[in-house]
């Protein structure tokens, strides 16, 4: 592998692992908080138990979230020293503020987990609110650095020197709100559906022989579906806005996402299929005429610039079309599944779900995580060849140190071990502390 590709793979590998755990680190605390609040309101002990069990799960996940996040932060400086030099001069604020977000999260999560029985119930809820705020803030802030890479602001380059630095203008760069908002709501979507997913799976198991457990998981499932459903809808709305920002600020990314070669108005939206560079079109896809123009600029007359009007070496890789589609299709499926589930139970008042529904619920969690991965890889790979859009190429930012290959394989190995271990520990822990035992203890 060539040096640059190795560096990119190394960073992408780490982020791809980190994001799973980081997203759950934003999403699950919200679910725990809601369970604690429901317990506070309804006095239904099941919710208290849910909060306890989810906290255990979240604490184990943190064992990977934190080291991979630390790696991300340090690796930025190790692999992309050129990039970090600019970030250090212009865009250091979000990193700085993020430290406080990390502190808040770390302090109050430890308090919640290790001192829960020594603090009042109110203090427990306050701690959880602070954990949720800390997690959300760390996600929003780090995403802001990513937003800055796509829509840089707050400085100029004059004769190769960085001048007129305005750190707050960089902080409030044009895509800050939309992009961070998208990451935040998609994390809540994921938190909700992952809970729903596990609950549905457990219900399938408990269905016949254990009505008490079945009821417990049913409550968790409904919580997950409602929260996941609401946030997936918001995610889609906000995703639409993200797309308009991409149209405005990174037009070649939009063209690549849609496999559009010729500049045109009334441009069609292509769903599915593969972009064929030779034939200059998307093959095997479905076309929705005029829709791309409409979605990008709220009017069918909106002119979309095609790839051919950009220099060839500005083109992002064309496979980003598939990643973008993957995310959008997953988003639509999630909204649909949540809607059907809630209507079936709440409005049609059916007591139980058909098996096929149950398996659809089981699928939502993994789908949401795939949506996160697709979205990020699309956003980061679609920005290529730039690390800072139209200002710094990725190849200019990369480290000059050699021997990345060995490190890449070492990291790969360690991640495999960590991910396998986290899965085993979760399975082991919940097998040793089954719900039945805790429900029985609760009854005493």
């Amino acid at each position, binding site marked *: 592998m060539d040096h640059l590709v190795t560096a990119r793979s190394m960073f992408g590998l780490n982020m791809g692992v980190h994001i799973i755990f980081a997203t759950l680190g934003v999403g699950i605390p919200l679910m725990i908080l809601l369970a604690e609040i429901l317990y506070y309101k309804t006095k239904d002990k099941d919710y208290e138990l849910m909060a306890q069990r989810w906290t255990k799960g979240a604490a184990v996940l943190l064992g990977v979230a934190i080291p991979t996040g*630390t790696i991300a932060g*340090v690796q930025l400086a190790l692999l992309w020293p050129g990039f970090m030099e600019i970030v250090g001069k212009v865009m250091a604020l979000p990193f700085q503020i993020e*430290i406080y977000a990390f502190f808040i999260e770390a302090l109050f999560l430890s308090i919640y987990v290790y001192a829960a029985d020594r603090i009042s119930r109110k203090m427990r809820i306050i701690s959880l609110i602070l954990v949720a705020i800390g997690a959300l803030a760390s996600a929003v802030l780090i995403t802001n650095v990513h937003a800055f890479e796509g829509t840089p602001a707050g400085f100029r380059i004059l004769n190769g020197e960085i001048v007129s630095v305005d750190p707050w203008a960089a902080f409030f760069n044009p895509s800050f709100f939309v992009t961070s908002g998208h990451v935040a709501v998609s994390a809540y979507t994921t938190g909700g559906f992952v809970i729903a997913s596990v609950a549905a799976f457990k219900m399938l198991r408990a269905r016949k022989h254990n009505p008490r457990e079945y009821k417990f998981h049913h409550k968790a499932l409904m919580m997950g579906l409602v929260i996941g459903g609401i946030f997936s809808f918001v995610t889609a709305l906000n995703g639409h806005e993200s797309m308009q920002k991409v149209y405005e600020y990174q037009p070649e990314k939009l063209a690549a996402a849609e496999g559009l070669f010729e500049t045109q108005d009334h441009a069609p939206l292509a769903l599915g299929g593969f972009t064929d560079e030779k034939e200059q079109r998307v093959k095997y896809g479905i076309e929705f005429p005029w829709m791309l123009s409409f979605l990008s600029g709220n009017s069918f007359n909106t002119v979309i610039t095609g790839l051919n009007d950009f220099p060839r070496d500005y083109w992002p890789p064309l496979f980003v079309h598939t990643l973008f589609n993957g995310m959008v299709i997953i988003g639509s499926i999630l909204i649909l599944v949540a809607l059907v589930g809630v209507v079936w139970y709440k409005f049609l008042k059916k007591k139980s779900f058909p098996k096929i529904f149950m398996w659809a619920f089981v699928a939502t969690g993994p789908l949401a995580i795939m949506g996160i991965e697709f979205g990020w890889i699309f956003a980061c790979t679609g920005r290529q060849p730039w690390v800072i859009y139209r200002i710094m190429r990725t190849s200019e930012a990369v480290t000059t140190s050699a021997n990345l290959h060995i490190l890449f394989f070492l990291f790969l190995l360690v991640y495999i071990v960590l991910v396998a271990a986290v899965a085993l520990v979760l399975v082991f822990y919940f097998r040793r502390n089954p719900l039945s035992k805790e429900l029985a203890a609760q009854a005493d």
Partner: protein
Amino acid sequence: MGDSLLAITVIWGFIFIYAVMGTMDFGAGFWSMVYINRTKTNATDVANRYLSPTWEVTNVFIVAIVVALFSFFPRATFTLGTVLLIPGSIILLLLSIRSGFLVFSHYASSFKYRRALVYISGISGVLIPAFLIAVLPVSQGGFIDIIDGTQRLNLAKVFSSPHVYSFIGFAISSSLFLSSLLLADYSKSSDEMEAYAVYRRDALITGPLSLLMAIFIMITMQSEASWLYDKMMQFKPLLYGSVGLFVVAGIALLLPSQKGKGMPRLAVVSIILQYFLASYVYGRSHLPYVVYPNVTIENGFTHPDAFHSLFIVYIVGFAILFPGFFYFWRLFMKDNKEYSKKKPY
């Protein structure tokens, strides 16, 4: 004070806090491994009780140091980032194994291979300070070659340098020393007298060892980084003061008291002051260099406007956070007595 001096002071402060908290953290992990079989003394329990709530907070300081470094001294980050790719990555790998397995071992308490998890995290934990501290001799100059216009770390030279090894020896011994001292205090204040006896004894062994290593560092520094040695010698009174505080700590551990022998709280305080003095002298003498001889706090400094915004954010941030730290400290460090009997949520 100039802006760049203010900035390096903030970084120095973070490094100092991390040096203390981190060595305690890694050392506690090590002790919890060593005493895993001694169920009667509770020594492992005490170590875990300290570790569980604190490791995450401690870890944030690493991130804080890196962030402060690249936001205040982007030029220095460029050099350090380029040069430290390999050692930095080794640290990251060890850190991820250590943190991961530390958490896993807590949640797999009845698992038959739990012991393996504890050993993995304990051993990777003591290796981390050993690699981390190697950054210090590297920043003293002499290990960076310029090949084809790019900076490269001469790894062969690093791993054959006695100076680097004296730093490594110091890092390991002082991790064990600081952590056993802290755990001694911690177990005494939670009435775990058997554990106290064990950690007091460990502190008495590892303390003199750390002092010896510190002396080794000064000896090797004389030949390998004489510029720094000469400057440090200008602070002789402070260095003697630091040794004096070390002696005070030793006496505090030996003195009789009402309950058990020794006054660990006094020893902890004087050792932290001792490290403070010694690191002050080290840091002060290192100035103005961040990486000798190319990067100084002047030529590596960020944009002054950016610095001002950052500095305000620091002040506001820590003012907001302070009550949180205080609450945390009270819950886990001060009132740990009643906690010792209870299980986590």
